[in-house]
């Protein structure tokens, strides 16, 4: 009983000890904030990767792919139909996307994924990423979504983009007409019949192509990542960042890739139908979706059968599971049935293994470093406890003279350490959770106070800082901090316990 009473009194009268637990509090709070933000980023990142890749991917080993996607999909449905909620066939190749800027072509290496929108929508939340389905902030104004979310994924332009395209086409037609007239006039004047520019202009980019049939879309249709479509620049004077749209829905771009079989360059002109933003710069600046038929055609992935029908090829099948927990079972079944010579069967995590492992390693190293901070706090407690034991030597002698046992005296200081640890860890958990809860307000305040954006959306792609509080981590951190406080009080407590009563009482 006296142990509790004395602990409580020491806690109340020794503010220096409370100061020592501020470092525990700060350490715990930092660990919780950092872990929550990292977990937030991590889970957002995983969600996006999973959304883009789908749950399970069956890839052909050859870039030529395999024929008959319908047959394979049917086979998968027969094998693991009860686990899956969607499956789609795609062709994935490397390509170069070139768009015209200031009269020049600007090339970009991209990963081209050819999809069938209807079935792709079943395996991943592509609609969540396409910008025409979401309201956008443009120059500080909110522009309402152009499509309602009930509209199925397709390859058509929105009315606004269509109007822009037609307007542009009209403008080019007018300038072309004007040029034509001028040329005709010049020819008349000079009598020169051969003009080298006349021929080249025929196939020169969007202008000429839309000239033929004004406003009509190309056969190739694309969704382009925002990282490709826009260009962010920071004004060196005003420090204001400004976004330039290099590619807008309705524009035509050129896609260069290679054919199946013996690789040979192939290109096609395609109309950008929409832009998408996943929040993963990896995807937003590298990934381009196009319509499957077009790519199969361009790459020569169509086999004409003798009976007049045709069979197309695919390079991967994306599978969405009803419950991701079934993945190991499904993988096992699929691996057993699709020969490893021709097919690679993986979950999205296995595909992204190194990246996810890197993130895990990063977070555990950070945790170790942060835990060292708490250990430092532990040494603070150790020093202050020694001070308190020295200061309390006489009281310890009195307690022993009144019959308190060594273990009783020791437990006073251990309980004291425990209480300090609990107060420190509790306050730390409170501060940490509050910080995480209000992190976006705090971010805004810091931005306002320092005049520098702490978390620019344009760099991190997220409007808000994502956080994820894992109760297990919080408990673990709090427990660790309490343990350190207790361990730090063991030495001083032992010292106190081994004092002899008279020795202690003589301390006058």
């Amino acid at each position: 009983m006296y142990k509790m009473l004395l602990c409580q009194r020491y806690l109340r009268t020794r503010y220096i000890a409370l100061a020592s637990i501020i470092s525990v509090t700060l350490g715990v709070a930092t660990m919780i904030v950092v872990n929550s933000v990292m977990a937030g980023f991590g889970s957002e990142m995983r969600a996006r990767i999973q959304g883009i890749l789908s749950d399970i991917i069956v890839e052909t080993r050859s870039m030529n792919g395999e024929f008959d996607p319908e047959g394979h999909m049917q086979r998968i449905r027969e094998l693991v139909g009860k686990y899956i909620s969607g499956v789609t066939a795609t062709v994935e190749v490397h390509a170069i996307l070139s768009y015209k800027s200031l009269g020049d072509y600007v090339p970009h290496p991209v990963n081209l994924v050819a999809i069938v929108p209807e079935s792709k929508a079943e395996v991943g939340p592509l609609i969540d990423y396409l910008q025409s389905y979401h309201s956008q902030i443009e120059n500080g104004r909110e522009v309402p979504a152009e499509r309602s979310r009930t509209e199925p994924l397709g390859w058509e332009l929105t009315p606004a983009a269509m109007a822009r395209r037609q307007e542009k086409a009209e403008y080019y037609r007018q300038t072309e007409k004007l040029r034509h007239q001028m040329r005709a006039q010049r020819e008349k004047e000079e009598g020169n019949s051969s003009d080298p520019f006349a021929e080249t202009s025929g196939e020169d980019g969007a202008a000429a192509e839309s000239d033929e049939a004004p406003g009509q879309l190309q056969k190739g249709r694309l969704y382009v990542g925002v990282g490709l479509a826009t260009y962010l620049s920071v004004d060196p004077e005003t420090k204001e960042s400004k976004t330039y749209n290099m590619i807008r829905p309705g524009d035509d771009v050129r896609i260069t890739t290679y054919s199946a079989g013996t690789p040979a360059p192939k290109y096609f002109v395609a109309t950008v139908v929409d832009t998408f933003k996943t929040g993963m710069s990896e995807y937003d600046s590298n990934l381009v979706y196009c319509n499957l038929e077009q790519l199969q055609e361009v790459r020569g992935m169509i086999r004409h059968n003798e009976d007049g029908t045709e069979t197309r090829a695919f390079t991967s099948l994306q599978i969405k599971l009803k419950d991701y927990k079934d993945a190991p079972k499904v993988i096992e079944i699929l691996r057993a049935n699709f020969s490893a010579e021709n097919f690679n069967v993986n979950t999205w995590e296995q595909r992204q293994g190194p990246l996810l492992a890197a993130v895990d390693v990063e977070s555990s190293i950070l945790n170790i470093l942060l835990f060292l901070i708490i250990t430092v706090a532990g040494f603070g407690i150790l020093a202050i406890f020694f001070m308190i034991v020295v200061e309390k030597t006489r009281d310890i002698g009195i307690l022993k003279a009144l019959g308190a046992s060594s273990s009783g005296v020791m437990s006073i200081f251990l309980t004291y350490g425990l209480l300090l640890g609990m107060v420190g860890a509790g306050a730390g958990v409170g501060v940490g959770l509050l910080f995480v809860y209000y992190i976006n307000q705090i971010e805004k305040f810091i931005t306002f106070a320092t005049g520098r954006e702490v978390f620019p959306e344009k760099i991190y792609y997220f409007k808000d800082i994502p956080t994820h509080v894992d109760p297990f981590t919080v408990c673990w951190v709090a427990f660790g901090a309490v343990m350190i406080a207790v361990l730090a009080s063991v030495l001083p407590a032992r010292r106190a316990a081994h004092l002899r009563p008279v020795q202690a009482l003589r301390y006058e």
Partner: protein
Amino acid sequence: MSTTIMTSDNPLLRESIAMPVPHVAALAVQKAYRKGEHSVPVLHGVDISVRKAEFLSIIGQSGSGKSTLMHLIGLLDTPDVGEVQLEGQRIDDLPVRTRDELRNRVFGFVFQFYHLLPELSLMENVLTPLMIRHSIWNYWTRRREFQDRAKAMIDRVGLGHRLTHKPSELSGGEMQRAAIARALVAQPEILLADEPTGNLDAKTGREIIDLMARLNEREQLTIIMVTHDKSIAAEAHRTVRLCEGRIETLTDAA
């Protein structure tokens, strides 16, 4: 153990076979304090024994080793030579836990310098021996009874109006009385009082001595008291003088 063999050699004990066994006794205790290489001898073989319900007072010059002797008897320190006995049993070499137990249950100690715990109120200070004796649960269930007991004891030493004061808010005499209340609340068999009236005026000192004498009479409390005050020493049944580390005179009062 060899206690029986030793006691048979001891003249004081042989004598005590005829008399009733002393309640508490120090037999030929020697104590020296080590100061670097030097050894400062304080007690050179002190023999002292107190019967049950006896009131003994010890007088002696300052620095003669009175407090040291009290500490040895109260098991706060161990003698270099000699032994301390309780009811004929050697107690100074018992295991630490048993000695803790004895200090709590058998001895009540009033320190020369009061030694109250500064963080606790007077009431809590007085309750400390009971808190130490009982487990948390036990104490909690009987706390009303204990508090009443402590309150009654504090009233008896005349501090009923100071219950919630901290030691730093009490005068020297009040602290001394609080220390006496603390020593008595646990109902010890033996009270070791090191100058319990040192800081009290004649009237309050007298009251405290009367209280001790009453307890001695009614509750058969054995008392060993150190004092400088001749008139107070005279209250005791017997007075011994400690001089240069030896018991010098034996005066039977009254």
